[in-house]
């Protein structure tokens, strides 16, 4: 191998260089810009006010104020609901669709469709279902004697309504990853476990689940990173309301920047969220590298 590598190192670097430059210009630079903004009193609605340096004032406001912490808690609450349901449902459905029965390929294909739909469309179709007075969801519920529920207009239900839309879209993701992993498991441990006379549940919890764990951890991290960024569905369904009950981090930043035009405060909140998501991303990479290392 050495021959090609040595001779061509310079060409490889020429291949790689544009990518690095492009990402610096289009990602790192805006982030640094956000950092610069976060120390400024930048009000887009009042362009004549000088953009003075305000030190840590924006950060102090963000971190000490109720709304930001509330948004942070709401984000993690939503993440906890969606991830746990997606994990249980996704693994459950994966166990069903990997049975050796006819038609499973078709079922799996159909279930993948929600993932490929634009989140705005997902928001709109669920809005259609949840719509006060008119929506079909309450009608379906009334058929089995439940409801009616004020899905998006009550502070008790709005977050759950958003969670349901997200669960609908992304359970297939967990199902797909788990099904792929299930089919690559080696059959030997199963035969051994069956000879030992274990029950189905025992086989699943002691043989299948431990083998699935690295994949499930990866899938959950990817979901967590996405859940932290959730924006479109909430923008369509509730815009953060009613009474801030669905205002997650992204919505908080959006409102500070584009409703109140306080770009500095929005940028400070952005930076805090960048730090939090960096932790998530780092943990994800660590788990990926561990997974690669254990594979040899």
């Amino acid at each position, binding site marked *: 191998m050495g021959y090609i590598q040595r001779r061509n190192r310079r060409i490889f670097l020429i291949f790689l260089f544009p990518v690095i430059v492009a990402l610096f210009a289009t990602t790192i630079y805006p982030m640094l810009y956000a950092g610069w903004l976060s120390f400024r009193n930048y009000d887009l609605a009042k362009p004549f006010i000088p953009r003075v340096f305000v030190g840590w004032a924006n950060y102090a406001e963000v971190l000490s104020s109720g709304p930001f912490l509330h948004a942070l808690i709401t984000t993690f609450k939503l993440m906890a609901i969606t991830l746990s349901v997606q994990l249980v449902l996704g693994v459950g459905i994966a166990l069903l669709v990997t049975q050796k029965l006819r038609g499973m390929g078709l079922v799996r294909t159909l279930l993948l469709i929600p993932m490929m739909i634009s989140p705005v469309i997902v928001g709109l179709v669920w809005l259609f279902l949840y719509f006060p007075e008119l929506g079909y969801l309450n009608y379906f519920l009334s058929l089995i004697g439940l409801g009616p529920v004020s899905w998006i207009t009550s502070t008790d239900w709005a977050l759950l309504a958003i969670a349901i839309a997200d669960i609908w879209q992304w359970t297939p993701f967990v199902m797909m990853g788990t099904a792929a992993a299930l089919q690559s498991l080696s059959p030997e441990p199963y035969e051994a476990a069956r000879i030992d006379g274990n029950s189905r549940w025992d086989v699943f919890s002691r043989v299948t689940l431990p083998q699935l764990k690295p994949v499930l951890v990866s899938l959950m991290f990817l979901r967590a990173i996405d859940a932290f960024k959730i924006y479109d569905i909430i923008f369509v369904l509730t815009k953060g309301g009613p009474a801030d009950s669905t205002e997650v981090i992204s919505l908080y930043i959006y409102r500070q920047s584009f409703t109140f035009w306080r770009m500095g405060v929005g940028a400070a909140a952005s930076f805090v969220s960048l730090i939090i998501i960096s932790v998530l991303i780092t943990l994800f*990479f660590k788990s990926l590298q561990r997974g690669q290392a254990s594979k040899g």
Partner: protein
Amino acid sequence: MDKPSTRQAILVYTLLAIILIVFMMPIYLIVSSSVKPSPIMFQKPPAFIFPVTWEHYVDLFTMRPFAKFIMNSLIVALGSTAFSVFMGSLGAYAISRIRHKRINDVAFWILSMRMFPPIAVVVPYYIIFKTVGLLDTPLALIIVYSTANIPLTVWLMKGFFDEVPTALEEAASVDGYGLVETFWRITLPLAAPGLAVSAVFCFIFSWNEFLFALMLTGSEAQTATVAVMSFWSSDAVQWGRIMAGSFIILIPGVIFVLTCQRWLVRGLTMGSVK
């Protein structure tokens, strides 16, 4: 796992039937509502058989310049896809072939660029594009989407290049091929499925994106997703038009699922599940 017994099979099929009904219902609603006459849009119980109307689709293209918005979406998605796949595969090839102990860190750094929350950089983008006069142009969106698409391409293509045996490349270099020629004539054709998968993912991501399109475009460069959302914000909600527009927007994704689902796992988990 052996073949399930008949009783188990019935149980599995019953559960899956329920799951399918629940998961397909919203998609059925989009399709049926897009051709349902407005007066019975919310009729209960829902009419499964009704006189099909194309008026919502006609409205979409006559009352609003929806064709133009689709064109914008296409320009942006194709532009960003071409740029990202070109840049990304060159970078991926370098990362796949360079033997250096820090090269994995570079790969992870590139991937991390795609994971940051878009909302955190939307204000800087807005100000920067405003300053250079790119606000409300397709080019602005092409640039922004490429920041997500390049890392995805790098990561996917790296996996495909890793699978091309280096022995082939060495043979080519013995035959007098230079590196660029080897890459172009030998490696790239062998990794062609990767190019297709990367391109499709880049396209779908750009086509479906909403937040940046909403913030960085106005009437000129507006994309289809933003246009559909705007049918909602007017005084009366035009559900028929919303659903007709939604159906048009979801076509590429559905085609992708139906034709190349075996690549979906790899693309969506960025190679962490193969």
